Structure formats: structure tokens, C-alpha cells
């Protein structure tokens, strides 16, 4: 049988050609990381030496707070109602919340954020010393479930979505057009190669690159910014796979009629640009007027980013993003259907 071999050969060929194009490697692997790095640094908290701590009313008396502040001037102890304190923690305005529970003082912080533990250690030291040392205050650490509330936490899934979109569109659309323009497609069509295999190989090669692309970004975000993936890996993999399939399909559609690489570049930019702005890669789309919200919500990148964030930030299973996944699958099916109808081989 030649057929399974043909599909494998076509896929391997696509992967090889891609790996042998250094500039493409840059755009696929390095660019998203630079992007995350730049934005992550630009928007990260510039005053790490201040330690904002919310103190629930009735936890510690004013004298105690004053003594602690004197012992460690970096501590910014702010009395708040329990509700305000929880909000402040969720928004990342404070690193730690102190609360009273019977005889103990509870240290409540977000375990995904490095400043929570540092703040706990500093606060504990000041607290014990202020209490007089002989009878240390009983404390208890409590990790809250509000994960990933920093900008970088929110940004990373968006960058993954953005990367899936651009590599899908460029990786498939540009290469296929180039193959058509240099008559490589015509040469392939002159063989008994099943035509669908060529198209399928583009998608499979895409999946292969995902294995590197996405883990690299996830690892980078974790090592450099301490961004933790809250959800389960299988859910993330499913969302990524469907997202990649969707944008590969759109890449195929974008190039289905294009005769030149210049032509397809224009089309791809027209697809990418609005979604970069509208679909919540760098900032939340809720800032746009209500009138455009329905449009924003049906865009594939919006659906992908929402699904990614549900898993990545909120730790939800993929089933919680069923609506977004359904929309993505719909886009995928429509893109493939149209691309196959319109596809020009010569």
C-alpha cells in the first residue's frame, strides 16, 4: 500500500521544509516568547519592595499594627472589611490577607503568585516580634483558590491563542500558496497522490509543531513569570488542538484561490489584524462598545482565547467551555468545507 506512506511522507516533508526555514522558526517559536516577555515585563508590578497586606477588621488591634509597621516599614497594612480584602487579593492589589479565626491568625494568599509567600514570611516575622516573642501568635496559612489574577497570567493564554492563529494562517496559507506559485502543487497533482493527503499533511504538520510550540510557551511563562496552568493538561491539549485545526482550516481557506504569496499575505493580514485587536489577546474585549460585542463573540480567536483562559486561568475542565469549543468546531467545519470547494491546484 502506498497511501499511508504518502501521507506520512507529505507530513514529514512539510515538517522538514519548515524546520529548514530559520526565519519561520523565529516567528513560530521565538516571537511569541519575546512578545510575552516584553508585555510581561512592561506590565509587571514595578515596586516589589512594598508589601501590601489587607487586614480584616478585628484581626489585630491598632497598637499591634503600628508596632508591626515600625518593625518592617515595607509592610503596608490596610484594615478592610472581609469582602473588600477578598476583592483586593483577587485583583492583585494586596499580596496577603490577614484574618482572625478563633485563636489563630490566618494568612490567606494566592499560591500561584510568588509575592504571596514572600509577604507571608515578612508579615509573620513582624507579627511574632511585635507580639513580644515569649508567646508567639498562632498562625495558619491558607491558600485561596483565586489563581492567576495578574496581567501576565491573563496574557499568556492570549499569546497562545494568538500564536495558534498566526502559525495556522501563515504556516498553512503561505506555504501552500508558495507551492502553488512555483508549480509544486501542479507537479504533485500530476502523480496519483490523493489530493486530500496533501491538505491533511499540512494540518498534521501543524499538530506536530504544536507539541513544541505550546509547551515551550507554557514552560517559559512558568519559569520566568511564575504563571501556572491551573487546569488539566488534557483539557488544554483539546482546546489547543481544536484551535489549531480551526486556524489551519482558515489558512487553507485564505490560500484556496490565491495565486501569489503577496496576495495571500494581504488576505491573512486582513483576517489576523481585527482579531488581534478585538479578540482579547492583549486587553479584554469588554472595553469595546456593546454594539460590537456580538461580532466579537463570534470570532474564532475570541472563542479560542476564552476557552484557553477558562482552562489556563480558571482551572476549569474543557467541558466548561463547551460553547466556545462548539463555535470553534463550527468555524473549522465551515473553513474546511469552503476551502475544499474553492481550492485551486494550479
Amino acid at each position, binding site marked *: 500500500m502506498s497511501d499511508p506512506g*504518502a501521507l506520512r511522507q507529505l507530513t514529514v*516533508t512539510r515538517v522538514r*521544509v519548515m524546520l529548514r526555514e530559520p526565519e519561520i522558526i523565529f516567528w513560530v517559536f521565538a516571537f511569541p516568547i519575546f512578545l510575552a516577555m516584553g508585555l510581561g515585563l512592561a506590565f509587571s508590578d514595578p515596586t516589589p519592595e512594598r508589601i501590601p497586606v489587607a487586614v480584616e477588621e478585628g484581626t489585630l488591634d491598632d497598637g499591634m499594627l503600628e508596632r508591626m509597621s515600625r518593625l518592617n516599614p515595607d509592610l503596608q497594612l490596610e484594615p478592610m472589611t472581609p469582602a473588600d480584602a477578598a476583592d483586593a487579593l483577587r485583583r492583585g492589589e494586596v499580596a496577603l490577607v490577614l484574618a482572625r479565626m478563633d485563636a489563630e491568625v490566618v494568612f490567606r494568599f494566592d499560591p500561584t503568585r510568588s509575592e504571596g509567600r514572600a509577604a507571608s514570611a515578612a508579615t509573620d516575622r513582624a507579627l511574632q516580634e511585635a507580639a513580644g516573642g515569649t508567646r508567639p501568635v498562632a498562625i495558619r496559612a491558607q491558600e485561596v483558590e483565586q489563581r492567576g489574577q495578574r496581567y501576565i497570567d491573563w496574557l499568556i493564554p492570549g499569546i497562545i491563542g494568538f500564536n495558534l492563529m498566526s502559525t495556522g494562517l501563515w504556516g498553512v496559507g503561505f506555504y501552500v500558496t508558495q*507551492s502553488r506559485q512555483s508549480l509544486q502543487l501542479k507537479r*504533485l*497533482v500530476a*502523480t*496519483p497522490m490523493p489530493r486530500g493527503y496533501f491538505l491533511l499533511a499540512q494540518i498534521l504538520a501543524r499538530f506536530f509543531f504544536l507539541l513544541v510550540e505550546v509547551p515551550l510557551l507554557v514552560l517559559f511563562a512558568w519559569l520566568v513569570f511564575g504563571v501556572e496552568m491551573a487546569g488539566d493538561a488534557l483539557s488544554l491539549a483539546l482546546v489547543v488542538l481544536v484551535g489549531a485545526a480551526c486556524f489551519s482550516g482558515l489558512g487553507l481557506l485564505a490560500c484556496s484561490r490565491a495565486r501569489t504569496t503577496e496576495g495571500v499575505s494581504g488576505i491573512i493580514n486582513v483576517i489576523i489584524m481585527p482579531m488581534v485587536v478585538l479578540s482579547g489577546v492583549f486587553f479584554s474585549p469588554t472595553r469595546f462598545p456593546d454594539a460590537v460585542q456580538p461580532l466579537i463573540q463570534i470570532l474564532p480567536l475570541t472563542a479560542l482565547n476564552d476557552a484557553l483562559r477558562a482552562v489556563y486561568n480558571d482551572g476549569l475542565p474543557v467541558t466548561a467551555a463547551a460553547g466556545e469549543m462548539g463555535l470553534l468546531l463550527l468555524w473549522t467545519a465551515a473553513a474546511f468545507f469552503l476551502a475544499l470547494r474553492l481550492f485551486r491546484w494550479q
Partner: protein
Amino acid sequence: MTQTATTGAERLPRNSERGESPSSEPAIVCRGLRKSFGSTHAVRGVNLEIRRGECYGLLGPNGAGKTTTVEILEGLTEPDEGEVRILGMTWGENAKAIRRRLGIQLQEAQLTERLQVVEALRLFRSFYPSGPTVDALIERVQLQEKGRTYVRDLSGGQRQRLSVACALAGDPDILFLDEPTTGLDPQSRRALWEIIESFREEGGTILLTTHFMDEAERLADRVAIMDHGRILIEGTPTQLIQTLGGAHVIEFEPNTPMADHELRGLPGVETVRTRGGMVLVTCEELHLTLPSLMDLLASRGMELTSLTTHRATLDDVFLARTGRQLRDE
């Protein structure tokens, strides 16, 4: 016909079966092919019949319609009119079965630059149910030293040989070669000729297009000369040259014009043509015609700017038919 196109169950070609087919159908037949691109009538009623095991040369100047004709036969271009049968099958009904038995080299198509020779061959080999190994293909086109070289680093001749190797990957019954040697140096041309000849010796059928009359004369059993979308004349190279009525051509440029009838009266002269200031005389025997021509010129006190003689070629046939050179160089 044994080649019925029940999907997935096509009869697979085998080397041993080549030429043994119970069908006596020709390898390629086409009738009344027409194809226009907008107002350009690229092919205007072409009929061809190419026998199995034959090497057939399609000769013609730029824009004659060779590529268009060949690509219609290859099932890559839809004709406006006319019918095509390949090995007794039609593109409409048996496309997949035909594809498996054709080896195609396109005039302009490129191979992926960033693949190595072996990788490109492995890819093409994977499209066919049977055929030679990649190593055998490489050996056949003499690229043994270049197996690990990237396509973009190959010379023109090496690329062309690789392109032919890709066409041979499925052990085809029919090989289509569209100007395989255009732009190659003489050594590379000869290397390709040898590959083509060995395929022919194994019983394969070849349809070759070319601008080069020497290539057609050497390789082709039969030749068709094509111009402006039509076939002007067809036959073996010898037959075509015989239509000139003389085996030799004397080409000279006198300093003053001469009347044709004076030259026709010379011994052994078959035809006389003038083109610009040049006079072309065909004759059977040079040693008869040439001295008397010299005497005539001398008796008139005429001077020669140039005089050459050569054996009549397909170029002369084309010139005689169209008043133009096959290649405008």
C-alpha cells in the same frame, strides 16, 4: 480492456506486464484537441496517435502549443474540444488508474528547494503502489554523489535529472518530458538522452517536446512539427527530411540578388528558397551541385559574403514549411 476503474481495485502496472497488455490500443490517442486561453488559440485541432514503446517527438517554436497539448494529454488541462485516450482509458473515467502509469516531467514546475535529493525521491516514490527503490532511481539518473544535497544546491542539469527520476518513481508505462534539455549544457543534455534511451529500450513509451532538432532526430522514432497550435507534418525524421527533396543544404549570401530559375537549372538542385539576402539550395549530391554553383557565381563576377553547407535537418523542414527558423537565436 483490463483497466476498469473500479475504485480502489485498479490493476497495478508491473514492469513485466509492459507491452504484454492484451489490448492493442495505442499508448496515446487524441482527436480534434482544441484549447483557447481568452483570445489565444493555443491548440487548434490536434490529432495524435502514439504507439506503445515508441518515442514520439513534438517539435515546435515557442508558443506553438506543445506544452498545452501535452498537459491536456496528461490530464492537467481540460481541453475545450476533443477526446483523449491514454492506454485505452479516458481521464473522465479512469483518472486514478492512468495517473499510476504515467511519469510526468513538467516544463516549469520546481521541486521543493529545501529537500534533499533522497527526500524528494522518497516523497514521489510514496505516491505509487510500486516502482524502483530510491537508490535505484538515484543510480539510474547518476546522482549517487548528490543524494544528500539540497535541491536548491543542484546544477540545472542535476535538477533536470532529479525531475526525470521523480517521473520514473512509479515505474511508468508512459513518460512525458516537456523540454527536458532546454537550458542545459551539451554534457547534461547527453546525460539526459541516455536516461531517455534506456527507458525506451525497456519498452517504455515517451512523449518528448523540444526545440532542438538534433534531439528529436536522435531520440524520436517519429516526430510531429507543430506551429500555431497545429501539427504541420508528421513522420520519422528521415521521412520528414526527405520531403525537402534533398539531403544537403547549401546556404549562401551573394552580393547581388539572383533569380531562382538560374539556380534550379544547376545539376542536382532540388529546391531553391530565398530568405532575406540568403539563398538556400537543397540538393542530393554536394559534389555535383557545389562546383557548378561556384562556376555560375564566377561567370557573373559575383562575390560571396558567406557560404555554408550542412546535411538537411528538421530545422530545414520547419523553415521550408513556415519560412521561419525553429529557434530564433
